[in-house]
């Protein structure tokens, strides 16, 4: 003769709602088979859910349980997955910063002393050319005559007679 199991009492229904595993196997089987006990359990569960919802909505601000946003739940997501454009920007800025850092741009490495000396010599030569060009941009022939030319003309044999030495002011010179 099969043992008849009575319906679950109120305490057992509560236990079933909180944690069904706390009931023994026979009671659990009854809860599964008995629609009345099952409906009673569901009704209690629904009532608790409704009560929870009301309490969450109606509770004053300082009584509410603080909620943590999804981003801050501790699940790490790389920045390039959350915002790809930001990730690209950060990567580009990092590369640029590295390239322009004092470690990369070593001034003394670019301007070695030998290179500076070489440039100084070249610049000195260049500036001498500039000065010459600035003083007189034309060949001398186009600007004036060489003072020596006058002497050459005076001493030109074709225009001179013996003993007629002529000074630049036109006077005769006794030799």
């Amino acid at each position, binding site marked *: 003769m099969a043992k008849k199991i009575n319906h679950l009492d109120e305490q057992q229904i509560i236990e079933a709602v909180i944690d069904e595993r706390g009931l023994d196997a026979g009671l659990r089987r009854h809860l599964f088979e008995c629609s009345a006990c099952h409906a009673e359990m569901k009704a209690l569960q629904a009532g608790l859910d409704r009560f929870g919802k009301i309490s969450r909505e109606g509770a004053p601000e300082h009584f509410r349980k603080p909620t943590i946003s999804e981003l801050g739940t501790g699940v790490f997501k790389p920045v390039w997955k959350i915002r790809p454009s930001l990730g690209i920007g950060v990567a580009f800025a990092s590369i640029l910063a590295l390239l322009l850092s004092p470690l990369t741009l070593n*001034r*003394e490495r670019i*301007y070695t*002393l*030998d290179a*500076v*000396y070489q*440039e*100084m*010599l*070249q*610049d*000195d030569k*260049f*500036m001498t*050319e*500039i*000065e010459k*060009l*600035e003083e007189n*941009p*034309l*060949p001398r022939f*186009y600007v004036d005559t060489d003072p020596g030319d006058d002497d050459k003309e005076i001493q030109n044999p074709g225009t001179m007679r013996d003993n007629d030495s002529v000074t630049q002011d036109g006077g005769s010179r006794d030799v």
Partner: protein
Amino acid sequence: MFKNALAILAAIILFLYPAICRAKDIPPGRWWHVPYFVEQLQITDEQKDELDKLFDYNRNRLAELKKQMEQERSELIKAFDQEHLNESTAITQMKKLENTRTLLAATRFSYSLELRKMLGHERFQRLKTLYRNWPGVQQPPNHQ
């Protein structure tokens, strides 16, 4: 307008010509990278950067003007040496050459001027003294 500006510039240059003549008192090249000058004049990294920019700009401009002057000079000589002389062309060419020469002098002077402004009176005078006493680029670096 442009002619007037050039005339004023030429007058300024003539007035300041002695200062331009003293340009040789300033060391050539990037002397601000030579420890001898840097240590004595306490040139900072920022000043080195500024001097580099000034030097690059000035020398590039001088090179451009030099090239321009050489072209204008050859054109003038060509006009002058033609069998049938065109006097007005030769005079115009001469004026162009003179204007470029004025610009060249002004550019050369502006370098000294900027240097003087950047260094201040005391350091500029000290630079000239240091340059006079400098053993020169022929000396090995460790002798500086």
